[in-house]
């Protein structure tokens, strides 16, 4: 049985007349970690949204666990064990931390419940201190922790983090990367979209770089880190 979780085949996505993704191929298997990198506006988030049904590709196919999900609604993808932590968080501001987490709780696709409320609390002790606070009362870093915690409560096989540390101070960003590294060790496959190549390549084994909606590099994270010219050319500011 294939262990492929999510695939994009020759995906072309447009925003109106603007051609954003130019025939992208992507795949992630169970347990893999992929750093999806590129400068602003290169199509990283659009690729994620295209695979999750948030934006519809005009051409190409999206497969979830080998099944054609090209036209499937987003909630169907979520039900197949794929959790998405969007750019800009997206917690429920009027619900407490506890309620935000509890409402997301469900068993994984195979019925397992490894990520319980208590386990999320021990992974993010800070959330424990804010348990009865409303979402709107949390700082940006706490909201990001809550969003990741909520995604884990769905017991996913694949966790997708889109710009998880965008706008956060370096200390908070480092703490979130440390926690994500711990989550990776549990075997959850992870796609991390980020501009911080140092952080994401230290967490993920594979790396992809997008430039103007096309894949210009697909290889090991180690190869990226050992190639300063590649970093400067495609990721440098």
């Amino acid at each position, binding site marked *: 049985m294939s262990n492929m979780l999510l695939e994009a085949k020759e995906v072309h996505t447009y925003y109106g007349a603007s051609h954003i993704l130019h025939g992208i191929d992507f795949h992630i298997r169970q347990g893999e970690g992929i750093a999806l990198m590129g400068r602003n506006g290169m199509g990283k988030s659009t690729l994620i949204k295209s695979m999750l049904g948030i934006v519809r590709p005009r051409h190409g196919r999206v497969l979830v666990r080998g099944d054609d999900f090209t036209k499937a609604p987003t909630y169907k993808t979520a039900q197949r064990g794929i959790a998405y932590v969007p750019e800009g968080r997206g917690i429920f501001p009027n619900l407490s931390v506890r309620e935000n987490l509890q409402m997301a709780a469900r068993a994984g696709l195979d019925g397992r419940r490894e990520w319980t409320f208590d386990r999320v609390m021990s992974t993010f002790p800070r959330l424990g201190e804010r348990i009865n606070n409303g979402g709107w009362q949390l700082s940006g870093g706490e909201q990001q922790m809550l969003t990741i915690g909520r995604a884990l409560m769905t017991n996913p096989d694949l966790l997708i983090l889109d710009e998880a540390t965008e706008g956060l101070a370096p200390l*908070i960003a480092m703490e979130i990367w440390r926690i994500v590294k711990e989550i990776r060790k549990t075997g959850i496959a992870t796609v991390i979209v980020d501009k911080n190549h140092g952080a994401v390549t230290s967490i993920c084994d594979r790396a992809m770089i997008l430039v103007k909606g096309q894949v210009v590099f697909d290889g090991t994270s180690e190869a990226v880190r050992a190639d*300063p010219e590649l970093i400067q050319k495609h990721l440098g500011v």
Partner: protein
Amino acid sequence: MSQSLDIIHDEHRAIAAMLSGMRSLAAGIAAGRLKPDFGLFDDMLRYIEEVPEKVHHPKENEFLFARLLPRCPEAAAVIAELEEEHRQGEARMALVRKAMAAYQQQGAAGFEGFNAALVHYIEQEWKHMNTEEKQIFPLARTHLTAEDWAAIDAAFLANDNPWQGAAGEYAALFTRIVNEAPAPVGLGGS
């Protein structure tokens, strides 16, 4: 390709985040937005004393620089400079500690001296890490052999994840600092 360079780079990112946090807190005090939290500054300075000064720098000296020097004599000057900076690390940190003690004693009148000592320390650390990443890393990648890398990587990996600490103590200290530092620098109340 080397896991040890990746480890050094990761540790640099943690150190850089801590330095950046201290600079932001000092800037907040200078702007009148924050009151000094000497306990927090003490923790942050302790992190720098424990992780880079006692664990990170000796590892660079003993394993990376020691292997690179015989393979690349043209790196001698820059290695000597970096090793001297490592030797001076404790003394440079002692100046920041002294300035903080004066600030604690004198109150607001002591801030300028503390801020100047802190900013000076941070700038030296930035320059130091930059020299390692921009000059030493490329030379190491070019001149060290597979055998060298195997020995260096083995020594680094035997170090049992120093960024975490043998019993997770450095990671716990880092987390405490993040939780205590006022937002937006950390997660604490402003």
